[in-house]
């Protein structure tokens, strides 16, 4: 597995190197904006080579089974949140999100409980961030 990571990192380093060539590297007397990025990219590629050839046994504790599908779903939902937040407004989107989350994380076994908790947390957050701290939570279609 480590070898795979090594290849990925090497690839990333190459990308940085390639993209960084647009920046002026300068020279030792006058290092330009591209100087450090190139340095970082080169180091990354060197270290990843070590990773590729290393024969260490992978540490058992860090390598779980495959990434869980739950996490992926939650991630997508959160992405959706970030995209719809400014259109639909804080209250609606957060309420929907929290209802889903409380159910998904097991905080509540039934939808009714999740809805109640969602209500409570959105109200709390609204009071805290918009009223008390005078934040600027998006108003969206509800106008609040």
């Amino acid at each position: 597995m480590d070898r795979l990571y090594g290849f990925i990192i090497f690839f990333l380093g190459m990308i940085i190197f390639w993209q960084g060539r647009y920046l002026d590297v300068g020279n030792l007397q006058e290092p330009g904006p591209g100087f450090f990025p190139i340095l970082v990219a080169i180091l990354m590629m060197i270290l990843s080579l070590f990773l590729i050839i290393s024969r260490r046994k992978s540490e058992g504790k860090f390598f779980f089974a495959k990434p869980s599908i739950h996490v992926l779903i939650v991630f997508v939902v959160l992405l959706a949140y970030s995209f719809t937040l400014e259109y639909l407004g804080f209250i609606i989107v957060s309420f929907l999100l929290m209802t889903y989350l409380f159910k998904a994380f097991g905080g509540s076994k039934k939808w009714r409980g999740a809805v109640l908790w969602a209500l409570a947390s959105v109200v709390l957050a609204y009071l805290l961030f918009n009223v008390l701290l005078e934040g600027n939570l998006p108003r969206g279609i509800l106008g609040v």
Partner: protein
Amino acid sequence: MGFGVAFIPVNLLFCFIGVLLGTLVGVLPGIGPGASIALLLPITYALRPETAIIMLAGIYYGAQYGGSTTSILVNIPGEASSVVTCLDGYQMARRGRAGPALGISAFGSFIGGTLSLIGLMLLGPMLARLALQFGPSEYFSFTCLSIIILGFLSKGSILKCFISALGGLFVGLIGTDSISGSLRFTYGSLTLSDGAGIVPVVMGLFGVAEVFINLEQKEDRDVFKTKIKNIFPSVKDWIKSIGAIIRGSFIGFFLGMLPGAGPVMASFTSYAIEKRVSRHPEEFGNGAIAGVASPESANNAASTSSMIPLFSLGLPSNVIMALLLGALMIHGITPSPFLVTEQPQVFWGVISSMYVGNVLLLLLNLPLIPIWVKLLKVPYGILFPMILLFCLIGVYTVNTNSYEILIMLIFGALGYLMRKAGFEGAPFCFALIIGPLMETNLRQALLQSRGDLSIFFTRPISAVVMGIACILLILQLFPAVQKRRAALKDQEDQ
């Protein structure tokens, strides 16, 4: 003068809020002082600089107090710096001695923090005067040293730690180059032209990623059911612990100052040394009270002394300090050796508030323990959604920019994947923040020396620091050191 600042009602209030939050965050596993400080950065905009730092610092050392509560009662460390406390603390709890364990932990933390504070008070201004001789080459050498010390601290492979740090260095480059003004890696995004942002990245890597990881593991928490009596340790307990406390405080004080080290390293080292020095080493791991007193004093001493480099030199010694650096810069203050003289209310105000804070924490941690215990019973299923919500909103309110939520989520995913692959998040974050400092100083040093690389080795202070860095780098690669690290890691895994 400092106490005058510290006792202004606003500052007292925020000191209290800070330490309270810190204890809370410390008690709750899964959310740490890093993510919470990042979350609260936006709120500090409205406060005066010293008030902001008073509160944020309170969160930091408060978390060192709180972290031990879960270590002792549930065998789950609330913070990385309380991992070692689990070893003896939980054993003491199992023998019905949870009370004295909690008590000595609180008292040890208090003594450690206070002693370290005295050191900070004496050493800080002295160091600032020394630092006036520092130039870019010295600063660059220090940053190199910090990154190299990170390797010692990493739990997994050193190679991966450094690769992680390189990743952080890269992300720190995104945005507008301060020296030339050119845009780097922004691809036309207005949001990115300001940089990826400390708040979104740290909250993503530490907050969101942590939640993702916990989503997978259903952990059962068995809060210890015995009644907690007798929080005050007996005289015998004190006799056994006082040496540990004093030693722990000194070790913590010195290790906290080292760039890249900090409370975690301090607690481990102190425990290891205490075990070696003890007349009854076999007791360690079975409920030796010194095994609780030592790391707890060390981690508090370290969290206090880790503020020294920031306040005297303007260099953050770990991620949390880097966040405090960010907070100061938000208020237009660039920490430097001149901070002590130019902004005395910040320097002395924060120090005196820390005395107050430690007292408050002692009061908070002893009688209020039953409340914290109840808090532990809040199911993760309720806690994590709320943490996520707060992260999402918090990030948004920094710049009223929903793209920053996107950045946070991306780094959350990245942090999750990194964790699964064995790459740690802390080196990444540290490098992210210290990267720009590193680069600016490197470039300025080279400009000064007209391209002469030897400047880093010819200027005396820089040479010494670079020398230490090189030695440490080579040391890390030796098998002997690796074995010792593996042993420490095994202790931690138990």
